[in-house]
C-alpha cells in the first residue's frame, strides 16, 4: 500500500543526498586547494559551508515534523533515527573540510614544505570513505557500510604515518615547525572525516539490520 508520507521520506532522503553531494564537493575542493596551494579555492569552500549548515537545519526540521505527524515505527523509525544521526555527521565533515581550507590559506602564506606522500593518500582515503558511506546509505547496502568501517583502520594508520613524517621534518629544521604543525592538523581533520564516514556507516547498518554496532566488538557487527 502506498502511504502519503513515503513522499516525505523520499524528500528528506533527497535533501540529505544533495547535502552529501555538497559535502563531497567541499572535501574534493579542500584536497585540491591543499595540493595546488590554491587560496581562492580554499576561500570558496569556506564560503559554501553556510549553505550546508542551512541544509542541515532544514533536514532536522523536516525529520522532526515527520516524527510529530506520523509516529514512525520499525524501518521508518530507524530511517528517521538514521537521518537524525547522519545529518550532523555530514555537517561536521563539511566543517572539517572548511578547517582544512583555513589551514591551507595559512600554509600558503609560508614557504612550501617538502611533500608528505601519506597526506594525499589519507585525504583520498577519507574522501573515498565519505563517498562510499553515502553510497551505502542510498543503496541500503550494509556490506558496503561494513567495508567502509574496516577502512577506518587504514585511515588511522595513514594519519599516524604522516604525523611521523612531519615530525621528522620538524626535527630537521625548526623553520619547518609552523607548516608541519598545520599539516599535522590537516591530517587530523581528514582522519576525523574518516571517523565521520564510519559513524554514518554504523547508522546504515542499524537502518538496514536494526543492529547497533557502535562501540561493540567487531564480531557482533
Amino acid at each position, binding site marked *: *500500500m502506498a*502511504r502519503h508520507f513515503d513522499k516525505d521520506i523520499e524528500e528528506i532522503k533527497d535533501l540529505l543526498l544533495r547535502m552529501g553531494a555538497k559535502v563531497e564537493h567541499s572535501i574534493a575542493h579542500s584536497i585540491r586547494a591543499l595540493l595546488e596551494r590554491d587560496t581562492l579555492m580554499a576561500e570558496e569552500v569556506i564560503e559554501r559551508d553556510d549553505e550546508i549548515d542551512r541544509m542541515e537545519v532544514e533536514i532536522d526540521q523536516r525529520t522532526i515534523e515527520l516524527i510529530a505527524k506520523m*509516529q*514512525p*515505527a*520499525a*524501518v*521508518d*523509525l*530507524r530511517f528517521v533515527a538514521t537521518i537524525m544521526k547522519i545529518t550532523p555527521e555530514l555537517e561536521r565533515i563539511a566543517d572539517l573540510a572548511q578547517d582544512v581550507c583555513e589551514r591551507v590559506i595559512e600554509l600558503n602564506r609560508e614557504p612550501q614544505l617538502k611533500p608528505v606522500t601519506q597526506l594525499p593518500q589519507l585525504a583520498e582515503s577519507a574522501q573515498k570513505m565519505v563517498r562510499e558511506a553515502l553510497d551505502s546509505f542510498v543503496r541500503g547496502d550494509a556490506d558496503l557500510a561494513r567495508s567502509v568501517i*574496516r577502512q577506518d*583502520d*587504514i585511515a588511522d*594508520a595513514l594519519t599516524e604515518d604522516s604525523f611521523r613524517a612531519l615530525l621528522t621534518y620538524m626535527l630537521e629544521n625548526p623553520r619547518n615547525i609552523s607548516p608541519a604543525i598545520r599539516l599535522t592538523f590537516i591530517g587530523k581533520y581528514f582522519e576525523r572525516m574518516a571517523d565521520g564516514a564510519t559513524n554514518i556507516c554504523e547508522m546504515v547498518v542499524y537502518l538496514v*539490520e*536494526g*543492529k547497533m554496532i557502535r562501540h561493540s*566488538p*567487531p*564480531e*557482533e557487527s
Partner: protein
Amino acid sequence: MTALTMQPIRSNRTEVPLMNQTTNDVASATPAKIHVQDFDFYYGDVKTLHGINLDVPERQVTALIGPSGCGKSTFLRSINRMNDIIVDAHADGVIEIDGRNIYESGVDAVELRRRVGMVFQKSNPFPKSIYDNVAYGMRIGGLRNKRRINEIVEKSLRRAALWDEAKDRLQDSALALSGGQQQRLCIARALAVDPEILLMDEPASALDPIATAKIEELIYELKDNYTIVIVTHNMQQAARVSDRTAFFMLGKLVEYGETKTMFMNPQQKMTEDYVTGRFG
C-alpha cells in the same frame, strides 16, 4: 596486519555470549504465567486460530495486535474460555495457566473466570448502582460480610483510579458515569474479584484521548500486581503500554517479542508492513 590484531579480540568475545545471558535472566525473573501450545480454534468447521504458541510472562503487559479478523480477540477470549458460550465453537491444544491446562476436563470455566478477569471494548456496567457493580463479583462469589465488601469496593475503585470521582455517588446509577469512567468502573469490577490475570479487549477504543490516557496510565500501574493481556487496534497504544507484543494475522501468530523490538526492528516482513502502516 589489522585483520591479525582483530582476531584475538573476536575469539575473546565469543566466549561471553552476552545477548543470550541477558535474555535468560529476563526469562527466569518473569516466569510464564500463561503458556500456550499448539492452540487451534474452530467456529464450526472454520479454523480461526492455527497452532498458536506463546508464553505470557507474569506481571507484564502483553499486547495482541493485528488487522481485524486476525483472531486476536478470539485468542483473548480463549484465555478465560469466554468462547465456551458460542455454540459450535471448539478449541484444540493447550493453554496453561500456572502450569494447569484450562481446557482439561474438570476445569470449571466459571471458577477460571474468577481468576482471569476481563474488560470489554464497550464498557458494560450493569444497570445498577456504582457500588453494586463493583460488589457484584464478590456477591455472586458468596461474600456476605458487609464490611469486607465495603473495603474491597473502595480498594478496587482506588486501584481503578475512580475512587475520587465516585466516592460521593456510590449509590448513583453506573449508567450516569461518563464513558471513560464507566470503563474504569468495569476495570474496578473486574479487580474486585481479585483475579491474577486481566484480559482487555480494546478497552480504550471507544474513548476520547484523555480517557484513553487515563486507562493507559492505569494499565501501567496495574501491571505491578496483575498479568495483563490487551488487544488493541491502536499500535501506538500497544507500543506505549505493553512489554511484549504479539502480531496476529489470518489466525496465525506471525511474530511475538519484546515490544521495543517489534516496533523498532521486527524480524518478519509482515510485522514490519503492519507496524509501519504499509499493510494491505
